[in-house]
């Protein structure tokens, strides 16, 4: 049975209204013998953004399909505005996990079609489409084929198409998978705006930084809801503090502290990032003492211990742990080590340039990644990340410049057999053959990458256990949910223990727990001397890298360690709590530069170049001027995402544009 821990106070905390927009009572869905949804109950109030979070296979998509009225429930109630979901389809907008509009129709044709199907008057379709396209800054793309839009644009188009019939409820199933940070923030700004106009939004997301922007969040696991509450309630329900530890030898520090940690110990959790460790502890003072003692004993110098609040991600992992769902770690059967290579240059690029006709995709890029290093390549869609990776691993010949890969320069051809044996590549799109079974896929890749015959069995078994698919090796790969496929693909890419590893958005669509297992594995490989080059849209994840390069329009605009990049950020991040957050955000966006303002749940983030005191005073005066009250204002700390967005926007102001706008 579902044991839902409703945190006290949440019921009263929901937005005011007597009839819920969405009411789910003891909902169940079985596929044959498999129980996908096992009796969930929840209510979503009108105008609320309600987040559904859970690992892959938790039953989120089934719940969405039932609420959208496109699938029948096995039993239970799924009402939208007090009527069965199936009957209220006309009031529901549904964004599916993958893009479900027509790639061979233009933006406006897609909108027209959806509008017609829903009996929206023709002139209304026209005017609403214009309004929403303008709102999402897509007006100039109305005649572009949907298939030619970038991932972020596609999702925005889906949203526009869903909004044109003016639904009362929006169901969004992982809407931002594969969408770059800038578009993601715009997307969420738009959602906040719509919710303040009274639209009810139910959204599933694997990214917990997005969950922070929901009014309430529910954790779903194995078809049951585990916890419902506002993000801050969930965070405080853990009763722990987070310690950020910066030290000289993170790898060893992690090992030592992991041995000390446990559910009953002082330190309950240790997680490694690119240049720090995150520790969770009930009593921070005791924990700090313990850390200092242990580090001293091991001869590791501690440069900083900083106290912070736990993140939703911490909460999520802890919750899953409490119910006994832990990523059991099967140690990787490493047979080869690249430790002796550490410190040497694994990937090098000088003046790397790629031109497609008159368009310069990559311009004069310098890059060095050493063995044992994790390098993150960040950038919006169309910034040139994938082109860069393709040139680095020899799939594409650069127009100009030199590439050095795994000890061979381009003259020797990075495509040679010997070099290929040493690199691993996991691409964004292609990874596995959908029509083969998992076992057959693994066997195939073990064969192509030349995994020695006697190691194949243990490697295959490791991939299965890493993916949590033991005993399911005979499933057809195409039938797996996206997140699981990613895990198998990742496993397949490292079976031959490459010394250089390219990962192109490896974790898109993967749940937090699995993502953590990915990064544990990536760190372990790096410790063994593997050079890792990774691209990601998720900046929380970029914190895991040792060094970062931020790309805009084919060039690096910032490079360095995560803390370094953040420290070099000019300007200040200000956090405001006001009584009418959405109105305030709209007003400030119009008054100043759009990108400087964004709304996180009930808090406003403003990036200002002036000194914090001055900026707070100025903004407060501005808001008071239109009759709004500022309840709280303080300087906050930049997240990597804030840095990314301001860097990209500043570059854009200087005339550098992404290829999307071309």
């Amino acid at each position: 049975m579902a044991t839902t821990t409703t945190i006290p106070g949440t019921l009263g905390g929901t937005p005011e209204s007597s009839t819920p927009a969405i009411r789910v009572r003891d909902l169940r869905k079985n596929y044959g013998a498999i129980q996908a949804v096992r009796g969930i109950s929840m209510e979503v109030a009108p105008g609320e953004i309600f987040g559904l979070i859970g690992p892959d296979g938790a039953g989120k998509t089934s719940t969405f399909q039932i609420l959208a009225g496109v699938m029948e429930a096995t039993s239970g109630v799924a009402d939208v505005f007090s009527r069965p979901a199936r009957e209220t389809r006309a009031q529901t907008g549904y964004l599916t996990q993958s893009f479900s509009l027509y790639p061979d129709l233009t933006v406006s044709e897609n909108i027209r079609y959806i509008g017609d199907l829903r009996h929206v008057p023709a002139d209304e379709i026209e005017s609403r489409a214009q309004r929403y396209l303008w709102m999402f800054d897509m007006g100039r793309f109305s005649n572009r084929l949907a298939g030619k839009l970038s991932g972020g644009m596609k999702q925005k188009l889906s949203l526009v198409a869903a909004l044109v019939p003016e639904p009362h409820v929006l169901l969004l199933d992982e809407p931002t998978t594969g969408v770059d940070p800038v578009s993601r923030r715009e997307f969420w700004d738009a959602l906040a705006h719509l919710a303040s106009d009274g639209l009810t939004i139910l959204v599933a997301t694997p990214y917990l930084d997005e969950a922070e922007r929901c009014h309430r969040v529910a954790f779903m696991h194995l078809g049951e809801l585990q916890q419902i509450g506002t993000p801050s309630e969930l965070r405080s329900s853990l009763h722990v503090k987070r310690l950020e530890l910066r030290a000289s030898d993170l790898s060893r520090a992690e090992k030592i502290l992991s041995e000390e940690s446990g559910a009953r110990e002082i330190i309950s959790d240790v997680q490694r990032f690119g240049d720090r460790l995150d520790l969770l502890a009930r009593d921070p003072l005791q924990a700090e003492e313990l850390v200092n003692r242990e580090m001293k004993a091991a001869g590791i110098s501690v440069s900083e211990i900083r106290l912070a609040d736990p993140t939703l991600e911490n909460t999520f992992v802890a919750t899953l742990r409490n119910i006994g769902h832990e990523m059991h770690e099967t140690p990787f059967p490493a047979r080869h080590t690249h430790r002796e290579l550490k410190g040497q240059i694994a990937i090098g690029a000088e003046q790397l340039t790629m031109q497609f006709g008159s368009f310069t995709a990559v311009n004069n890029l310098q890059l060095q990644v050493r063995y044992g290093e994790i390098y993150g390549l960040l950038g919006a869609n169309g910034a040139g990340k994938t082109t860069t990776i393709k040139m680095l691993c020899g799939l594409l010949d650069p127009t100009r410049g030199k590439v050095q890969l795994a000890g061979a320069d381009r003259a020797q051809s990075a495509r040679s057999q010997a070099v290929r044996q040493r690199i691993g590549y996991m691409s964004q799109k292609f990874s596995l053959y959908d029509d083969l079974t998992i076992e057959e896929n693994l066997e195939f890749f073990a064969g192509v990458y030349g995994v020695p015959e006697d190691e194949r069995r243990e490697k295959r078994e490791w991939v299965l256990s890493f993916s949590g698919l033991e005993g399911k090796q005979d499933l057809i790969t195409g039938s797996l949910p996206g997140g699981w496929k990613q895990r198998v693909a990742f496993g397949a890419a490292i079976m031959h223990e490459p010394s250089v590893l390219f990962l192109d958005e490896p974790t898109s669509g993967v749940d937090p727990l699995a993502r953590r297992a990915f990064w544990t594995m990536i760190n372990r490989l790096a410790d063994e001397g593997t050079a890792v080059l990774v691209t990601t849209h998720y900046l929380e994840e970029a914190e895991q890298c040792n060094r970062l390069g931020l790309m805009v329009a084919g060039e690096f605009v910032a490079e360095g360690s995560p803390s370094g990049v953040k420290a070099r950020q000019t300007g200040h991040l200000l956090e405001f709590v006001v009584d009418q957050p959405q109105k305030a955000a709209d007003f400030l966006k119009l008054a100043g530069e759009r990108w400087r303002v964004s709304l996180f749940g009930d808090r406003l983030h403003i990036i200002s170049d002036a000194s914090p005191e001055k900026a707070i005073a100025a903004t407060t005066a501005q808001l008071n001027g239109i009759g709004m009250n500022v309840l709280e204002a303080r300087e906050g700390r930049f997240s990597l995402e804030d840095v990314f967005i301001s860097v990209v926007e500043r570059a854009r102001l200087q005339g550098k544009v992404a290829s999307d706008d071309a």
Partner: protein
Amino acid sequence: MRRILAQTRKELTQIVRDYRTLSLALLLPIFLLLLLGSAISLTVDDLPIVVQDLDNSSASHDYIDAFRASVTLHVVPWPVDLKPEDALTSNQARGALIIPVYFGRDIARGSVAQVQLLVDGSDSNTARLIAGYSSQITQAYNAASGGVVRAQPVQTAMRFWYNPGRSSKKFYGPGIFVLGLSMFPPLLASLAMAKEGEQKTILQVYVSSISAHEFLLGKILAFMLVALGEAVLMCVLLFTYFGLNLAGDPTPFLIATVLYAFCVASFGVMVGAAIPSQAAALQAVALGGFLLVFLLSGLIYPISNIPAGLRWLSNFIWGRYYIEIVRDALLQGGGWPATWYKVLEIAATGAIFYALAWRTMRRMQVKA
């Protein structure tokens, strides 16, 4: 109604957008008609036969000249020292005529002269033709050289109606026209339908509360228009290049064409709905639309030639009735009395396809 039209417009936009689809829809039927319409021909001429003249007399030369005069056969000289069967095995000739020594002498004596004709029987149709023509030529030679002439009590005067020149173009043209209509519109319809399932766009359709009837009719209407467009283009070709004309009342043909367009579009949509994979749907339509219509509809071989065990199948082949209607309209001109029940058969088949498609789609929900 508005949703049906919206659906139709969307389908047509998609077809027009992709030039490959568009050419598949419009150019390939024309190409098929030109190619098959002119290439298929069961009247043969210039069949090579070798002649080995062991007698080499004036009588044998006369006899060989009679063969030379034939349009159907083409005489290839063959040296006496080579085995005539080599000409057959090396495919230089389809038959071999061997004239023994004393051929001239036997004729002069008035006794019966024997000649030998070896025919390559591997292609039975051609073999029958060679045998037939050879005995006709021999009969004519006998008559001319004053052999025994019997009185002929019955004489047939043959006239070929409807297609006096016995042009095979006029016979096959209408058949290929039907084949084109049976193949391309359902192919496109099934691909479009399967694509909705494959690309998951069907979810947006499900969530929009459009009914299964509206959705199916919208799609079918679009591909009916494609079929009718093809029909018009191919008709232009039939009336010009193939030299056909309407014979008699055209209304059964016009009505049957609209119904047939509905029938094939429904067939495609039905297949696409049942098999949500483009590759598999394509195979199914290729089997149903092409193979069955090609083999079992009387397009090339008369239905009476189909072995009795399989002949009943042709009653279920929708193309068969339409071929008969088209041939009637363009050649025989029998009008309604000759075709009314065939028009009904087409309508009924279309209705069955539609009902099956609706059965698959009726819930407009994800199957689970």
